[in-house]
């Protein structure tokens, strides 16, 4: 039981790191970024490819840097020119980017599933209430906690965080106060994609890489973002935790309907509270 709850935490933690990047980008650009799943996948592949030369941790660093750069490019080349257009337009462009990205990965690394070895430092298990539990999974939980704390501190208590929150609801007014919202959004979108990359790399020793891995994580992270209350960081955190538990305990206790549980949870939350867990920020 304890282990199953831990597993739920791992799952929720992974989901949170993917989703929070989505939230950041949604917050700042009001764009439901369909390419996000693709970024997660790309991050995993880059981490894998660079890992062949620099080892797992080196690969992680390379992936974070490249993904952040890619995010900056995405913001500069796509979101900024499209900022005055209808949001749906941008959503579609991100969908187009997803298609291109999947195809590129397919072209470079092939369609075969690739598995990534555990970093040696965390290979192995610890004993938790009599059962072995992979140390690496504990690391995933720790990373998620660090991301939560870091982001919360940054957003709630720093001036930049205030700017991000303000800019995410009204960029023009924020800009009028002397904030260079464009540079801000370069940074934030870069951070968001880097987080997508981070989650991809972190996930890679757990789950095999394939070009399709992005699409499957996309829907679940959308669910997290929506249940959390669009654009809400703390909401996404709670939503990811809840979904993680619901997902895992569902598999254990309600195996026949487990795949529907997150969907049903979303339906119930949205019907009771159309704006999601948190008041929408």
């Amino acid at each position: 039981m304890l282990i199953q709850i831990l597993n739920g935490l791992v799952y929720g933690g992974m989901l949170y790191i993917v989703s929070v990047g989505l939230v950041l980008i949604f917050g700042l650009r009001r764009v439901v970024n369909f390419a996000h799943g693709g970024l997660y996948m790309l991050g995993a592949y880059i981490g894998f490819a660079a890992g062949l030369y620099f080892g797992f941790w080196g690969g992680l660093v390379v992936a974070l840097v490249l993904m952040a750069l890619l995010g900056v490019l995405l913001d500069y080349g796509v979101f900024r020119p499209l900022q005055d257009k209808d949001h749906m337009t941008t959503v579609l462009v991100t969908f187009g980017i997803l298609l291109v990205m999947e195809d590129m990965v397919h072209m470079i690394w092939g369609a075969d599933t690739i598995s990534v070895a555990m970093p040696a430092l965390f290979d192995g298990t610890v004993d938790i209430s009599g059962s072995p539990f992979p140390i690496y999974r504990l690391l995933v939980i720790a990373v998620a906690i660090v991301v939560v704390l870091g982001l919360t501190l940054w957003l709630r208590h720093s001036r930049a965080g205030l700017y991000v929150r303000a800019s995410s609801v009204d960029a023009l007014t924020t800009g009028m106060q002397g904030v260079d919202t464009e540079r801000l959004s370069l940074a934030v979108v870069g951070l968001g994609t880097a987080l997508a990359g981070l989650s991809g790399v972190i996930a890679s020793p757990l789950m095999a890489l394939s070009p399709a891995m992005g699409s499957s994580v996309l829907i679940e992270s959308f669910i997290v973002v929506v249940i959390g209350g669009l654009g809400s960081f703390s909401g996404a955190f709670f939503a990811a935790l809840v979904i993680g538990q619901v997902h895992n305990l569902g598999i254990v206790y309600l195996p026949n309907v487990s795949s529907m549980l997150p969907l049903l949870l979303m339906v119930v939350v949205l019907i009771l509270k159309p704006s999601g867990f948190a008041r929408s920020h």
Partner: protein
Amino acid sequence: DPIKIGVATALTGAYGDLGNEVRRAVEFAVEEVNAKGGIDGRLVETQFLDTQAKADISRQQAEKLVNDGYTLLTGAIASGEALAIAPMLERWDAVYIGTIPKADALTGAECSPRYFRANVPDSADAATVGTWLKDQPEKKWAIMGSDTAWGRNSGASFVGTSKGLEREVVTEGYAGLGTSDFAPYIQKIADSGAEGVWVALAGRDAINFAQQAKQFGLLDKVKVAGVSFVTDSTVKSLGDVSKGIFGIVNYSSTLDTPENKAFVAAWNKKYPGTWPANFEADTYVGMQMLFAAIDKADSAEPEAVAEALSGLTVDSIVGEVTVRPEDHQLVRGNFFGRIAEHDGVLRPVISATIDAAVAMPAANRDCQL
């Protein structure tokens, strides 16, 4: 004029790797036969279209191929694709050689006079389990299946088989296609006290499960065996993790027959450093069937080819095999094996051969051709 073979297969999407195996095998077979001057002096020509393994797209692409004169078809990955195409074959005046889809219905209730199956169906895999299980000391088994018709059926037949052999199935889990985190299933199996796990997962799901089971230490504690699990792509993705896993093996490149040895050698030449994988070999068998039938019919007209295929006997890489006229299933044997080193390389190695007479259940009476 050339003989036209149309291949509508999953070149992209979740099953892209399988589609590419099909593609390699067809290209190999065609190149080989053309190098010999074709069939009865006619060269073979192919066209590939992408289906993403989606039934509706598959049907459209197949129709397109037929309209362009490619009336000899193959390439379906998912059973749904073949099931969607089979009923149209007569109207299109085409012939289909199935090499991957395993659903029993294709040679059962949904059988078609124009659909021929070269690979081993689900029921034959199920019939193979018992011969292996009876020799295993483990009494308590867990089932880890994919939540699809195939996975559920494999699970059910394992349960059936184990009852007869006084084995107990202590827990069953079925994960949806594309499941990335198997931790809850693995923990459930660990908590159940099972001594062995029967795995009916395929592709990426199988790999994710095996990798995570290893990380939880499950692979070291219990015996792992499965269907469609011991494949070359599993080995390729998992490396050492896969070592020692048991399973039903429809084909192994280590198969010790002269035909297969020649095939493997030729394959090695065209694709250096690789061995034909099971789906590649099955597709190659299908092509052998097709070429033999064209040769026999002296025609590439679908009607004539279909007639020739029914009851055809071929000297294939899996031995001398016959297409059963009752349901158009290729009657062939099956194997049990495990992943082990062979010639210094990890790959599925055959440990037991099950004769066609045992392995292939009788033709399904639901099939009315």
